[in-house]
């Protein structure tokens, strides 16, 4: 039996890692705002954040394709600035994955920040910690479990995405061909051995990651509040 091409697997892991990093940076302030705001806009923002959970990936993928295409404002600006298109590129995939996995980052973080609550932040302020200081030294450590859950879910969910990637990225080896698409391709070409091998790798990987997270959570319980 020939070993399947592992390139798409590395590409997938790279995509998931970059997406998770981007979402940690974007998702933290968004989740913080959602957890603490009293603005009337909040339910609207919450709904938008949750949309990728319920929309068919093809719908999201279609809009992204329209948004990122060189004919659109964003895609056109990108093309004139970098000389490359956003569609059918790795950068385009990152943008797509970021939107697609947004709820998996924001929702656990929001829940974690809500359970930390305002009380410890007031305590920190009374000890002369400014808001940023209090965020990094009190809120974040107390929300550690939320961060762990959000990171793992985002990473795993990005690895498993298929529809959006296919719509936005296509199937270009080395650039946009991720492992889920590779598996689909192997099945289409009745190459079941390779499909089995790749599917097994994904299954074992996902299972191992989840088990380690649950073990970690059990062993290092954080007591907020």
């Amino acid at each position, binding site marked *: 039996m020939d070993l399947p091409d592992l390139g798409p697997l590395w590409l997938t892991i790279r995509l998931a890692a970059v997406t998770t990093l981007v979402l940690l940076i974007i998702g933290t302030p968004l989740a913080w705002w959602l957890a603490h705001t009293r603005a009337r806009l909040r339910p609207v923002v919450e709904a938008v954040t949750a949309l990728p959970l319920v929309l068919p990936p093809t719908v999201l993928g279609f809009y992204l394709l329209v948004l990122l295409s060189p004919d659109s404002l964003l895609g056109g600006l990108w093309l004139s600035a970098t000389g490359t298109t956003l569609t059918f590129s790795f950068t385009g995939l990152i943008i797509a994955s970021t939107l697609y996995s947004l709820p998996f980052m924001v929702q656990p973080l929001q829940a974690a920040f809500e359970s930390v609550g305002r*009380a410890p932040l007031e305590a920190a302020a009374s000890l002369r910690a400014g808001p940023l200081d209090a965020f990094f030294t009190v809120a974040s450590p107390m929300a550690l479990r939320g961060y762990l859950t959000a990171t793992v879910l985002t990473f795993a969910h990005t690895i498993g995405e298929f529809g959006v990637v296919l719509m936005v990225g296509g199937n270009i080896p080395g650039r946009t061909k991720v492992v889920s698409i590779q598996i689909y391709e192997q099945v289409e070409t009745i190459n079941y051995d390779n499909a089995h091998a790749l599917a097994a790798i994904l299954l074992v990987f996902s299972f191992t990651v989840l088990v380690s997270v649950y073990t970690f959570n059990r062993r290092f319980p954080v*007591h907020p509040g």
Partner: protein
Amino acid sequence: MTALSVDIRVRYRDFALDVAHDFKPDGITALFGPSGCGKSTFLRVVAGFERGAAGHVAFGDEVWMGARAFLPPHRRAVGYVFQDARLFPHLTVRGNLDYADRRAGPGRARYSLDDVVGGLDLAPLLDRRPVHLSGGERQRVAIGRTLLARPRLLLMDEPLAALDTRRKSGIMPYIARLPQAFGLPVIYVTHALEEVTQLCDRIVALSAGRIVAAGGVAETLERLDLGDIQGRFEAGVMLEGRIIATDPDWHLSQVDLGGAILEVPQILREIGAQVRLRVRARDVSLARTRPEGLSIRNMLDARVLALHPEAGSAFAEVLLDIGGQHLRARITRAAAQQLGLAQGQAVVALIKSVAFDRQALPRPLPPKPAP
């Protein structure tokens, strides 16, 4: 001189707070009143946690809140001890103390981390996590942590409310000497009169969002015109005295009130120690002449200063002079009538020794931290 000057208004849907007061720069001032009267909201406005307030808050010549100014909480030289301690669960006791010490404002030289650890007996707790502390230990750590931020004003929001009586009396001595030991004024929110009389020098009584009385503890508590402020059951006076004798066989102490002598359950303090005793009005009975054959140990010669029958009720409040200090008695209107009580009249005030709540008696102060 004024430490804290406050003139604020807060309006919520079914709650209003309208308070103006200048707090003195030393000692412990009780902010006293029933639940929901606005005590905690007041503290939160002073600390800067409540954005919806209007008015003026100034500390010394620093404006914390004004028409256009709002100093955020972390920039105010104010320490806050919360009812629920709010220790950081992810840090040890030492970590919690360090957190405040590292961020301390100017005045770090006033006292060191070791002074605070020693003064509050925190050394055995340093490596523990907050979850493994008792309620009383948690509050002691919270007080220490607050002190280490080197505030110039300490706000305490019912710090003993969540504790049982035994733990309360364990912490009270520590709180009592905070102003002297660490050189800062304390505003102490409570609805427990026992804490007011044991800890505080002054009282600001709040009712339904307004100040109804302010002044020294003793003279405010003996006012008969304040109606329900203290609560009918708990209303009474504070007496100050000196222990002159202790009888270990009978477990009794004698306290000299400056003329009159009271016999109370033994107070574990040295002869000569100054103590404060709270006497509830309902624990004081009156007689025209000195009765005989009674179990009541305390019979004090008294003179009626004021008589205050409460219309529409069975009761009358009587203010008595017992050789300089004052006592309140709560008796029935019928009894007052039958005894023919009148202002200036000499009577005998009777107080059972057991009326002095054992737990409310002062405990010895722990040694002060090295200067």
